[in-house]
């Protein structure tokens, strides 16, 4: 025999003895049936110490002869101190475990009535229900503060910090971004009439051959007037062509552009009010001329803004 095997056998023997002593120490004394067909070798409560309302398992280790039948009780006796819930039979190697679950509602030592588990009768059992107030101070404990979830204080601190920091950061960002935003908005607004006009002119170019001359020039000149309205910040819609002449003179750096615009308006007036007809080519020519003049006007405006000499304009 190897020394290792010898040592293992000794250890198993020691463990078996220790278990036996433990069971003897913490279990009621084993008892046998009257006919000697079974022996209750141990009674164990899990958990060993329990309180009112706890679900407790009563585990009985029974060694029964081959003729004895061990069954879970079909009906539990009614007791004043609590109630039985369920039972199960668990066969083990050489013995049987009976698991009975109950809940006690009263404190103190209580007698368990006989529990009939087939041929096995568990009798003379006591339960000892402990009280939470045992050994507690007589005076009631002072009230607890609010219970907080873990990290609650950290989260609150972070939130408070954010509440203070975020508006300040927003304000700082706004102050920093405002000039830039203003520039973007101003640029967008400044170019809006031109974008709208370009869209209108593109639409007119597409319909240059379809609409009659009068309708074409009504739409065309109205679009130009709306643009000039925003460009010079005056009510150009209420201006006649003669009044617009002065506006054009003041608006265009190149006097040829002003004259070109004026010619378009004068010709348009003849078409609108004098019933003059015009070809598709003439309409497209006027559209092209207007687009070119407006492009120059917009570019000169942008250049004037970039030029520091025009900063105050």
């Amino acid at each position, binding site marked *: 025999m190897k020394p290792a095997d010898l040592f293992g056998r000794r250890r198993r023997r020691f463990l078996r003895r220790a278990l036996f002593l433990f069971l003897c120490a913490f279990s009621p004394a084993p008892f046998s049936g009257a006919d000697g067909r079974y022996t209750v070798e141990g009674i164990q409560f899990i958990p060993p110490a329990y309180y009112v309302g706890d679900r407790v398992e009563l585990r009985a280790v029974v060694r029964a002869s081959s003729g004895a039948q061990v069954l879970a009780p079909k009906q539990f006796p009614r007791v004043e101190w609590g109630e039985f819930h369920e039972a199960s039979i668990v066969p083990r190697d050489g013995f049987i475990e009976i698991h009975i679950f109950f809940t006690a509602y009263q404190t103190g030592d209580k007698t368990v009535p006989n529990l009939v588990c087939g041929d096995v009768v568990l009798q003379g059992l006591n339960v000892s229900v402990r009280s939470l107030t045992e050994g507690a101070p007589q005076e009631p404990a002072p009230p607890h503060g609010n219970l907080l979830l873990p990290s609650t204080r950290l989260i609150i601190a972070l939130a408070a910090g954010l509440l203070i920091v975020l508006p300040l950061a927003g304000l700082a960002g706004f102050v920093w971004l405002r000039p830039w935003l203003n520039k973007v908005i101003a640029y967008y607004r400044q170019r809006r009439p031109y974008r709208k006009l370009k869209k209108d002119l593109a639409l007119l170019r597409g319909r240059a051959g379809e609409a009659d001359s009068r309708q074409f020039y009504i739409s065309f000149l109205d679009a130009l007037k709306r643009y000039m309205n925003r460009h010079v910040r005056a009510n150009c819609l*209420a201006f006649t062509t003669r009044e617009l002449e002065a506006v054009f003179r003041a608006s265009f750096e190149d006097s040829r552009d002003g004259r070109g615009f004026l010619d378009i308006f004068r010709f348009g007036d003849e078409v609108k009010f004098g019933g003059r007809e015009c070809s598709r080519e003439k309409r497209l020519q006027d559209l092209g001329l207007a687009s070119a003049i407006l492009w120059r006007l917009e570019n000169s405006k942008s250049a004037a803004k970039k030029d520091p000499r025009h900063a105050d304009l």
Partner: protein
Amino acid sequence: MDIQQLQEELGSARGLYSQARENISAAIVGQRDMIDGLFMGILAGGHVLLEGVPGLAKTLAVKSLAQAIDASFKRIQFTPDLLPADLTGTLVYRQQTGEFVPRKGPVFSNIVLADEINRAPAKVQSALLEAMEEKQVTIGDNTYPLPDPFFVLATQNPIEHEGTYPLPEAQLDRFILKVLVRYPLVEEELEILRRAGRGNLGAVSRALFPGDIRRLQDVIGNIGVDERIELYIVSLVSASREKQRGHNSYSRYIEFGASPRAAIYLYRCAKVQAFFEGRAYVMPEDVKAVAPAVLRHRIVLSYEAESDELRADDVIKNLLGAVSVP
């Protein structure tokens, strides 16, 4: 009418008008607005109210117009003791036949100058204004038509209101135009001085016959007015009646706006203005050009306008600047 044909007729009609205008200008130094106003009134078939201080050649202008047109002309000086019969005429008893015969008053002329119309009482003003509207006068049991053309030029002084009878709005509305006669420019006044010093006030030679006036009116009647111009005229007149009392709105300065008659006169005068410009069609600038003279006596200004020392022309300028042109 064909546009080409109209343009040709317009050309010859303008020739006549230009000649008459030149002839009057030979007698009157400056005062272009007044002379244009007189022609506009007569060609639009309406009557003109001239407002200006004494000594601005109002009477001379009207006399010259009558001479240039070769039309009969009468001047009536309105005074507080004037009676309607002094104006329209009356029935006179003829001893030889023992019957009443009508004696026609000075109103039976082509051109009548009602000088200082606001100095006569309301009944005299009414008699003249009725003749202006109906173009006929009833004497006794008979109604007599007034000569054609019949053109009344009334004057009033803007500074002396003592002992006057201001024309009520309803009667002012009968005048197609109210022309403000302004002081001449310095160089014009100098020219007047020189002419007066030489005793040469200029003679006006005839350029038009009363029949020519009818012909010019017919040509002007054929001048085209686009529907958008018509809408613009109506928009202007109805805008004067708007009751938006916004702080920046011109309408808070207007107590009562112009009547639909103003729209009719605006329409007619815009055509005449287009004729003056040599166009066979009316443009928005024609309407704008005549709007002050047509509207200034038809708009009753509010207390706010008075307190802001605004005149009707200022309010009309705002009105014209607010209504979109076609």
